[in-house]
């Protein structure tokens, strides 16, 4: 049998939103991760839970990129597409490589299926104009699944629902993946449903054997273990779960209770789900009556001495603005997690975008500077959320942590940390020496950090408020000179955080002709693009930002060093505008995409090549 060795491969599972494509994709990527591959995944699904069957709008996809080398992104085009119906085939036709393999369920290519997906001829393959180099592998998945479960006495609906496992079996065979690990995952998933487990394992095994026995007339692939990964214990994790764990770790390190006040909103809700599950480590979660209450309940918990957080997406961040303003005025620690999605308004709830940056930076009344931190991979959501908690508690300030759909739902390999490895967290509590003399305005003169006193501390009774306070006595004040002083103190406190933020690092070619600037979730795509460019002989570098406000100390120095600088982001230029306001006299080119989708490496390469070749 023909086996092709590959460094990396992109597989896309695609079907109806009820076809179980997310589970299939997750199983396959976890399986690959266990076998030592780096992975990056990208689930792409409609907002409807069950969109009309067989239609283009109902197509749900899960793409995974796995490799033996560095895997930066979930990949642009797929090497292998699994299309469970004609709609899935049509939606993904353009995102398959010319030399790709397409596995289709021939049972779902009846005339009525073609009609639902809007085909005008009887031959979808010709109509979609696939290259001759593309290998179409027709498998009657539905009828084979029915045959596989003939003796199980299950109803037809349940049987048909298992066809995703048959597809997974075929794909496992295609990639020479032993299925025992997949069976292990299924055992965990269906621990309370032994009948369903048996059925899924049977179909999966039959799918694998189908490929193996019939020697489907295609070559199979082999991908080596990754060479670059440091030794260690790994798991695969998505951004939302990593975010939740970051909060848990930070609270434990600080010796405080972890408290989440939240309200369901796509794509942030899984953070609340995970934390609600984690009562074992003492997390308190409140599903509030609305977004405003979510942040206010959290702020109350912060006043009472917890590491308090609220999780939301763009529209929810708008609703929370006033309370976040209160947190800046009252100077209380609070982590606000914004998992961005396509906007404005309801926009595209399941799609990714970076269009909340200016809202996060400026979306409050009055002079209310705030710390903004952005995660850049599903796995580093853990670290940056942890750091958001650390900054909040050590500087007694609200911090906004930016994530997005791409990070929230995407998974990556994560080397599991021990709490002892994480940086210390020392909440800035009022010292005993202030007992009996404390008031709400008491702050450290050097750092301008306000001392935090918590109910229960005797001799520290005080009144906090959203009103301006006297800088000395802490009472209500409308004195003009005092207000000027307080506004400056709050701004200085945020600016001083610069001292604890690491410098940005330039990656790629240090003598580059083009410096690429990015922030947040685009890191993988930008790294992938500059890597490709440098392989082709161009000189390109990347500086990627996780700390947005305050900016790292060396920001201006780095930006001024390169003659051509392009800021790439999934919005109309928020970060570019912010950088221009902070770094005088720097000329920044922009590359912006606002399509609800991440960048792809190819389009970035095209843009960079154009910038490098233009006069």
């Amino acid at each position, binding site marked *: 049998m023909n086996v092709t060795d590959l460094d990396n491969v992109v597989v896309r599972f695609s079907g109806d939103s009820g076809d179980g494509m997310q589970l299939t994709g997750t199983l396959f990527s*976890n399986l690959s*991760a266990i076998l*030592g591959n780096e992975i990056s995944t990208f689930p792409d699904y409609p907002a409807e839970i069950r969109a009309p069957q067989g239609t283009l709008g109902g197509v749900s996809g899960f793409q995974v990129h796995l490799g033996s080398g560095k895997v930066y992104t979930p990949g642009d085009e797929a090497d292998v597409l699994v299309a469970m119906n004609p709609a899935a085939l049509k939606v993904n036709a353009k995102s398959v490589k010319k030399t790709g393999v397409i596995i289709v369920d021939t049972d779902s290519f009846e005339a009525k299926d073609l009609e639902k997906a809007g085909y005008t001829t009887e031959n979808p393959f010709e109509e979609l104009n696939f290259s001759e180099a593309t290998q179409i592998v027709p498998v009657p998945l539905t009828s084979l699944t029915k045959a596989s479960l003939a003796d199980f006495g299950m109803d037809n609906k349940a049987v048909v629902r298992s066809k995703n496992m048959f597809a997974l079996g075929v794909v496992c065979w295609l990639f020479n993946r032993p299925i025992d690990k997949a069976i292990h*995952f299924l055992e*965990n998933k269906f621990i309370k449903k032994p009948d369903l487990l048996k059925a899924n394992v049977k179909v999966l095994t039959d799918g694998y054997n189908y490929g193996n026995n019939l020697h489907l007339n295609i070559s199979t692939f082999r991908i080596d273990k*990754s060479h670059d*990964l440091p*030794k260690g*214990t*790994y*798991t695969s994790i998505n951004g939302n779960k990593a975010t939740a*764990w970051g909060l*848990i*770790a930070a609270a434990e390190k600080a010796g405080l209770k972890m*408290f989440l*006040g939240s309200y369901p909103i796509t794509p942030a809700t899984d953070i609340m789900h995970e934390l609600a599950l*984690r*009562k*074992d*480590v*003492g997390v*308190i979660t*409140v599903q509030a*009556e*609305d977004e*405003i*209450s979510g942040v*206010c*309940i*959290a*702020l*109350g*918990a*912060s*006043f*009472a*001495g917890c590491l*308090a957080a609220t999780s939301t997406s763009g529209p929810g961040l708008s609703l929370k603005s*006033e*309370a976040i303003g*209160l947190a800046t005025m*009252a100077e209380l620690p609070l982590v606000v997690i914004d998992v961005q999605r396509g906007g404005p308004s309801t926009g595209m709830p399941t799609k990714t975008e970076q269009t909340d940056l200016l809202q996060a930076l400026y979306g409050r009344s009055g002079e209310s500077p705030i710390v903004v931190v952005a995660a850049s991979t599903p796995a580093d959501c853990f670290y940056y959320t942890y750091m958001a908690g650390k900054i909040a508690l050590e500087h007694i300030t609200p911090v906004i942590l930016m994530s997005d759909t791409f990070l929230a739902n995407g998974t990556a390999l994560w080397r*599991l*940390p*021990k*709490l002892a490895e994480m940086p210390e967290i020392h909440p800035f509590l009022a010292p005993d020496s202030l007992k009996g003399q404390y008031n709400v305005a008491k702050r450290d003169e050097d750092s301008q950090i306000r001392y935090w006193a918590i*109910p*229960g*501390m*005797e*001799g*520290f*009774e*005080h*009144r*906090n*408020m*959203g009103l301006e306070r006297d800088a000395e006595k802490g*009472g*209500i004040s409308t004195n003009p000179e005092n207000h000027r002083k307080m506004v400056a103190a709050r701004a200085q406190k945020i600016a001083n955080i610069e001292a604890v933020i690491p410098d940005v690092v330039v990656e790629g070619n240090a003598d580059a002709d083009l410096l690429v600037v990015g922030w947040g979730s685009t890191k993988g795509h930008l790294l992938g693009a500059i890597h490709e460019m440098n392989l082709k002989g161009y000189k390109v570098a990347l500086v990627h930002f996780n700390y947005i406000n305050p900016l790292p100390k060396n920001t201006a120095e780095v930006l001024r060093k390169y003659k051509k600088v392009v800021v790439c982001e999934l919005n109309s230029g928020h970060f570019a505008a912010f950088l221009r306001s902070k770094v005088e006299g720097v000329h920044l080119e922009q590359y912006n995409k606002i399509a609800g989708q991440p960048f792809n490496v190819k389009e970035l390469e095209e843009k960079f090549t154009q910038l490098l070749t233009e006069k």
Partner: protein
Amino acid sequence: MIAQDFKSDQYVRFCPGCGDHAIVNSLQKAMAEIGVPTHQTVVISGIGCSSRMPHYLNTYGFNTIHGRGAAIASGVKIAHPELTVWQMTGDGDCLAIGGNHFIHSLRRNVDLNIILFNNQIYGLTKGQYSPTSKLGFVSKSSPYGTVERPFRPAELVFGARGTFFSRTLDVDLTTSRTCMVAAAKHSGAAVVECLVNCVIFNNGAHGWIADKETRADRTIVLEHGQPMIFGANHDKGLVLDGWNLKVVKIGENGITEKDILVHDAQCEDSTLQLKLAMMEGPDMPVALGVIRDYTTETYDHAVNKQIAEVRAKSKIKTFDDLVDNCEKWEI
């Protein structure tokens, strides 16, 4: 402890003659009687005249943003149930902009002591009608009279499944203090509706019952386990007439004290309690005192109890345990 212990160093800035002065005094006395130390007492407020209260109390206080007091107070109490948490709010702060948080904190039964200052007006913004202003009320924002029906706070509290409702008049210091102490003793969300006179923008709003000469005949101070008797001569009482309450005179038509209803504030069924709370003049007296005081599980207790139960059973106790027990592999 004495009332003085709860006085802050701030000068009380309510308007001269405002009913809020009386509430501050009643509250400081009530806090002293309750005896929870100042450092374990937290007072949360939103925005409005009533919400200035935390500044005048030598406890932990947080004067927050308009309408959100109930949510912020809930956060404090859920995070640290051992603290005694008060919420100061007004008819605008609580029933207009903060309505959602109010009903949900009652539904959840968070152990808060909520003092609702009802003066039927927005005072701090200088005189607009509020959700409790009477139909037709003339104010700066309703120069031709309002055309909207008011809330009756008791009805809202009962509708939200509140477990405690009491009512007092600013000028009735004894009843105010009794209600506040009872609210603090109640385990669960406790509402004390204070009928407060805004001397500047809505003077005399509660005059019909507040006037000292007629108050005894126009109000009834309810007490759990006591017959519902009122009147200057202590000779009027309440009885059931079919589904409705009726005022009778003891000694007339053969009525004796034994015929008068005895108040049960503690029963779960709130039907009669609501009827009492909704009584209005001129035919019926307005009910003051503790009208409902039913005890059931509080949200803050339930949340923390559930966490303790899960922790007792789970082998995962720390972050490192969490990591050790997840799906993982060596590379």
